[in-house]
């Protein structure tokens, strides 16, 4: 892969269109569906980068869990009703300027330094088996910490979202 394939441009356009639609659409449920498109585009980009496992994990976690969670949260907070005074905050211009500035800096950094990074173009032969071995070998401590974090997050989320009992006054 010396140059970028047309598939890459297609997927990049899909991802970015999904992202833009997420930010710009008014109806929150549409935003959630658009962000799903962005997630799917990213998963396909991962596959394009020969990272099968990460791509499928991306679909499973982001489309199967996070998107559904977002949708549930939107419905539970009556987010599907359009707010009266617009969806963008009063300081939207400032936000836009900051985002554009960040993109300018990042883009400049990428274009200025990417040629200095050594690149190889052979497709890495990585199987799920290797990933599993790495997870329980070299990366076993991070794995355990992530497990702990997920447990803590599950309990925390349940406690935070649980109905508060009526406190005696």
């Amino acid at each position, binding site marked *: 892969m010396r140059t*970028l394939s047309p598939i890459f441009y297609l997927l990049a356009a899909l991802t*970015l269109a999904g992202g833009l639609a997420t930010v710009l659409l008014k109806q929150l449920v549409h935003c959630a569906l658009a962000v799903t498109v*962005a997630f799917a585009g990213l998963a396909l980009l991962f596959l394009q*980068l020969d990272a099968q496992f990460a791509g499928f994990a*991306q679909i499973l976690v982001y489309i199967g869990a*996070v998107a559904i969670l977002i949708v549930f949260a939107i419905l539970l907070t009556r987010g599907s009703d359009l707010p009266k005074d617009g969806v963008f905050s009063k300081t939207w211009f400032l936000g836009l300027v900051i985002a554009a500035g960040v993109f300018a800096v990042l*883009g400049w950094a990428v274009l200025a330094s990417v*040629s200095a990074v050594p690149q190889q173009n052979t497709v890495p032969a990585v199987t799920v088996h290797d990933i599993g071995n790495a997870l329980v070998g070299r990366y076993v401590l991070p794995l355990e910490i992530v497990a702990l974090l997920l447990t803590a997050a599950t309990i925390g989320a349940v406690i935070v979202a649980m109905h508060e009992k009526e406190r005696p006054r």
Partner: protein
Amino acid sequence: MTTPLAGYLLVAALLFAIGLGGALVRRNAIMVLIGIELMLNAANLNLIAFWRFGPHPEALTGMMFAIFSIAVAAAEAAVGLGLVIAVYRHTNTAELDKIDRMKG
């Protein structure tokens, strides 16, 4: 855009900027969380791209980072949305500029 790596990095940068813009511009707390998710995803794309085009893909570092980041992002989404729901239950709104009192 001379090399594939630059292409992926630019896409990631643009997606990061879009996510950041969304988080800064939108008023709804859930939309801010979605913006943060987009930013995390952009970072993941960077990690995977560096893993793919980096000198030692067999070391799996970038891939592992991405997988852990996906796991952490899932936890973050769960807790974040739980918080939004708790706040909504308290104040009856998920609009960030209306949640401006520290006293409940």
